[in-house]
């Protein structure tokens, strides 16, 4: 165990930062960034801690940005009044959610709750826009990766929609 008096806090901090950079690198929208660029992103993200059952984002609230799960797990669910919900996904370490809010302030389409005590990193639109202006080269890399992620999701949604329509038409004709 490290001696609390003689232990070097600078190295400990460095190691923590390295962990965060490694985690950021795993997120698709930051995967093309080099270490220096990741360090720039690290300067503008917010670290938050949520207790079990705590709401991270609420369905219907204005979207502000995305979250990356660092530790713990998060449930994404839609709410239909009086506490009724339908869970959409169960996210663990390294997963992210709310990335569409990086583009505009549209209301959140689902809520996110902490399933256990968890640490998350928040990356928000105003900081992203500021980054795009100050560091255009870096900002464009993130923007392009975000476009690819959303495009990929749209493609999957299209495929699902086509499959559902095919199923429907088969049932109809059958």
């Amino acid at each position, binding site marked *: 165990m490290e001696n609390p008096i003689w232990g070097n806090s600078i190295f400990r901090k460095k190691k923590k930062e390295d962990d965060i950079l490694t985690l950021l690198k795993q997120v698709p929208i930051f995967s093309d960034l080099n270490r220096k660029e990741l360090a720039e992103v690290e*300067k*503008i993200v*917010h*670290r*938050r801690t*949520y207790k*079990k*059952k*705590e*709401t*991270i*984002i*609420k369905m*219907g*609230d*204005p979207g*502000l940005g995305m979250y990356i799960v660092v530790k713990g797990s998060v*449930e*994404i*669910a839609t*709410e239909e009044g009086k*506490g009724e*919900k*339908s*869970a*959409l*996904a*169960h*996210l663990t370490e390294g*997963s992210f*959610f*709310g990335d569409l809010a990086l583009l505009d302030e549209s209301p959140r*389409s*689902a*809520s*996110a*709750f902490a*399933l256990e005590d968890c640490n998350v990193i928040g990356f*928000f639109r*105003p*900081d992203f826009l*500021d980054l795009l*202006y*100050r*560091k*255009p080269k870096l900002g464009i890399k993130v923007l392009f990766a975000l476009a690819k992620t959303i495009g990929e999701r749209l493609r999957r949604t299209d495929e699902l929609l086509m499959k559902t329509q095919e199923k429907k038409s088969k049932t109809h004709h059958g």
Partner: protein
Amino acid sequence: MDKYTYELYSQLLKTSWKVFLIILGIALMVILFPYAKDVLIMFIIAWLLSVLLSPLVDYLESKRVSRGWAILIVMIIILALIALSFSLIIPGIIRTVEALTTKLQSDVINELSVKTEAFFEKNFNNAELARNVTAKLNEIGVNLLNSLGEFFKNVGSFLASMVIVPVITFFLIKDSRRFKRAIISQVPNKYFELSLNILHKVENQVGKYIQGQTIDALIVGILSTIGLFLINVAFEWPIQYFFFIGMLAGLANLIPYVGPVVGAIPALIIAILNNPPNLGMVLIWIVVMFILVQAIDNSLVSPLVVSKSVNMHPLTVIVVVIIGGKIAGAIGMLFAVPLTGIIKVTLQQVIWGLKKYSLHSISPLKEDSFLNPKGGEAA
């Protein structure tokens, strides 16, 4: 004591503790304000400067200059400009105002008094009334110029003593994001997104407002200077120091409704004191020029550069200017309207946020839903 009563008591205790702390905080602020006033004003000026300079720093940063260097370059340019204005403009203005005060106290006022007395005696046949009127006019004139002189002396010594302002400005620009993150990290989760969103929106709007006001003041200053220069050319230089007076008019323009009138007064006084042969025409042209500048400002400049979100009722402007003057003298009067604008924008955003965000900290969902979450597609 049952569980419910115990929880109620503990909640009540927590709330009263919070209320006590808030009251204590407000009381401390009120008690410490007279001592901290100067520091506070320094911070406000440094903050205003940081808001004004940040876009330039960001621009240089976007051109691949490192942030530290970008701040240094901008600060050196600004400090050089401030030093230049100190060595050239401020002493000049103080000398002018002092000379004018002496002149006003001596011959010109007497001349004007005799003329006014004669006018009243001729038209109203009342020498007593004439003497009263001229005495009052004399008092107002001297007071006005004295206060103007004091204003510049105060500004001069105040700014000269503030070597520290550039240092504060440097760190405010360099570490603004770090400060913002540190503040926002203390906000409870329930209010986190709401606070962050409001903070960004307020920062954005306030930045635009301050930058807009400064550009507007600068344009009005330049237009007034050009106008006064043209009058000087046409009427054999009846207005000395036209550059300072023009720029002063631009500065006064920061105070809506009141500013444009205040801006015109020094030019009129100087013209009267110089008493050129065609004084009437000069005065008319000065008034016409200032009206023209205001017309151009209101129809062309303001709509383009000044944010609409901070429009204020004339009555509000008058009240806040008086309060600003009471708190911090001439500087207070100058900054009263912009600061009220900032408070207005902040309140607007807070109200917007409270309307838009549903402030739930704990999920309304049942416990078992957390134990057995259903799987599904990613949101």
